[in-house]
């Protein structure tokens, strides 16, 4: 039933998204609301989100294939599949954000390896290859399991590197006080792990077949999610308290934007209340802690909270003018420090999410994701 509903929702999202893709390809960036001041918008935030989920899902798959934790045996393929779906979703999101996405080959032909972005593009290419290879080995050649170990070890390194790279992508901008903190690249691997744990909670809670270990798995994943949520809260506290205490105007303005600005609700309601506090409460509650459906919902809520969290990292730093008078210096489309995604941007994001959802479900239905036998055998 859950799958049917998700298929339907994914289909509707994909149809709506098709209009967004059409508009994006015909009119280019003209109908986007990001601009020359708020340079990166919803698509960049969603790239951070999906890339985090991909890296985190891979991290969680190592519990099965690298560390061989008995409790999580048999969960590796589902997490690899989640990583394989969310990575292209991330790259589609950031690809559509490019002014000339058809020139992406130039990053391979004439890369500037001093650029974090170039490192990321190469990194994602290798990481995507590792995920695909790992999944192929896990599904088609389960008897050659020893091949998986080096793949998973490299993949784990890449997932940490790429997560940190996302933080560095923002953090290297020395002129943006809100981003330019050494802790940012250190935080992102933790965020990725938290996304992966939430994704696993969702998958195990809603889609995994009945298993005697399921209740225990969900309990452990719940505790991991809660622990990482507490770490996330601590990171938020250190970031915001230091910024406010330091009184550096650009930093304070950005933090105030998040806490009390026009989109305060995205922080307080989505990121904190729904995405952090409610999951902590329910996942610790003895009545719900081992409940599969609740666990799935909590995983979804944590992921939903992460979308707001990514947006709250990207947008506020850009809505603070480099020079205050720029607000009024020159008028024109896309020259504003206010940002809310346009309908086209929402459509594209919803379409990508819908497409990823359907692709993920198709994989669950058509591939031996939860079966311990290769496909040929099960058939």
């Amino acid at each position, binding site marked *: 039933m859950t799958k049917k509903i998700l298929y339907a929702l994914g289909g509707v999202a994909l149809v709506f998204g098709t209009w967004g893709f059409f508009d994006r390809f015909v009119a280019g960036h003209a109908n986007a609301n990001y601009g020359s001041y708020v340079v990166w918008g919803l698509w960049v935030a969603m790239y951070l989100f999906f890339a985090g989920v991909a890296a985190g899902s891979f991290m969680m798959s190592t519990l099965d294939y690298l560390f061989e934790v008995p409790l999580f045996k048999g969960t590796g393929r589902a997490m690899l599949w989640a990583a394989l779906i969310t990575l292209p979703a991330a790259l589609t999101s950031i690809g559509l954000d490019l*002014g000339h996405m058809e020139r992406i080959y130039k990053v391979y032909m004439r890369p500037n390896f001093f650029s974090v972005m170039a490192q990321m593009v190469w990194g994602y290419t290798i990481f995507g290859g590792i995920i695909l290879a790992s999944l192929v080995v896990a599904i088609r050649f389960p008897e050659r399991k020893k091949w998986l170990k080096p793949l998973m070890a490299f993949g784990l390194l890449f997932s940490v590197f790429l997560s940190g790279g996302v933080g560095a992508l923002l953090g290297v901008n020395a002129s943006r006080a809100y981003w330019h903190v050494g802790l940012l690249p250190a935080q992102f691997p933790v965020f990725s792990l938290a996304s992966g744990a939430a994704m696993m909670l969702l998958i195990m809670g809603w889609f995994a077949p009945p298993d005697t270990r399921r209740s225990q798995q969900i309990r452990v994943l719940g505790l991991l999610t809660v622990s990482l949520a507490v770490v996330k809260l601590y990171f938020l506290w250190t970031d915001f308290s230091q910024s406010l205490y330091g009184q550096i105007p650009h930093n304070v303005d950005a933090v105030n934007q998040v806490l009390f600005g026009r989109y305060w609700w995205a922080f307080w309601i989505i990121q904190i209340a729904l995405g952090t506090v409610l999951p902590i409460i329910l996942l610790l509650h003895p009545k719900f802690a081992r409940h599969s459906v609740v666990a799935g919902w909590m995983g979804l809520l944590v992921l939903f909270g992460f979308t707001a969290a990514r947006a709250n990292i990207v947008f506020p730093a850009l809505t603070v003018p480099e020079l205050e008078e720029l607000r009024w210096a020159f008028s024109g489309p896309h020259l504003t420090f206010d940002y809310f995604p346009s309908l086209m941007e929402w459509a594209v994001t919803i379409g990508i999410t819908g497409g990823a959802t359907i692709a993920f479900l198709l994989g669950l239905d058509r591939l031996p994701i939860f079966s311990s036998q290769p496909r040929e055998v099960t058939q």
Partner: protein
Amino acid sequence: MTQSEEQKERSYSSTRRDFLRALLGVGGAAAALASMDRLMANPEAILEAINRATGDQATAVADFPFALDPTDPPDVLLRMQIELHRALQKRPEERRWVMVIDLRKCVGCHACTIACVAENRLPPGVVYRPVLEQEVGTFPNVTRTFLPKPCMQCDNPPCVPVCPVTATYTNEEGVVVVDYDQCIGCRACMTACPYASRTFDFGIQYVDNTPMGNGTLLGQSGVAPMELLPVFEYGRSRERVPHHSPIGNVRKCHFCLHRIKEGMLPACTLTCIGRATLFGDANDPESLVAEMIASPNVMRLKEELGTEPRVYYLV
């Protein structure tokens, strides 16, 4: 004004009128005046022409108030023009183009912004040189300050290392440029720039959503072709066509390199009515800009970042 000063002023006015009459009487010089760019491209020739023209009527120029010696021209524009030609004789790497903006002379007319828009055919939402305005003080001691802000052409540009495809780089003359054919439009350089000196070309036209006006100069049919005329940035003619560069690219001030190459000053410098914007080769110790940036009242924006901007402000 004293009596002698009044006489002197009258004498200057009279000789100016005579001079202008004389000048207008000479076809070649008059034709040259018709095109400011052409005129400015060769100041020595202009001065020669003026002298030749006025030499025919010696009385008209006898009391001409300005020296017409190319080494001591009457206007900073002419001086900068001569210095520009001198700099162009050198190898590119020996030049150090800098811009000096005298904030005491800027009247906030925005002519530089408009000249830049016209020169580079900038579409809506793309601006290379906005003028920042600020009201200072409280009544009755209130004033407005104006700060023209082109690209700072930093010696340590934060925008360059973040580019994943080396589409933006410092050229041999020290100007930070964008290779439109290489740029993938990721806008990482825009987030890195501490001065918000880069804007993205979203592909918007001024006539978008305006009525058609067939057979007239108004509306899309009349004006759109104007907007589609090629741009000449970086010395290459390039038509602005959807999905092709410069649409989808990051764009920025480049000190009008295409004009400099042809021996012309940047459009903003030439247009500044208060002569507040100066341009030249700081490696030439005789240049106006070299003189100006040695003054004690010079400053640069956000110096604490260590970006070493090549745009200086006189305050």
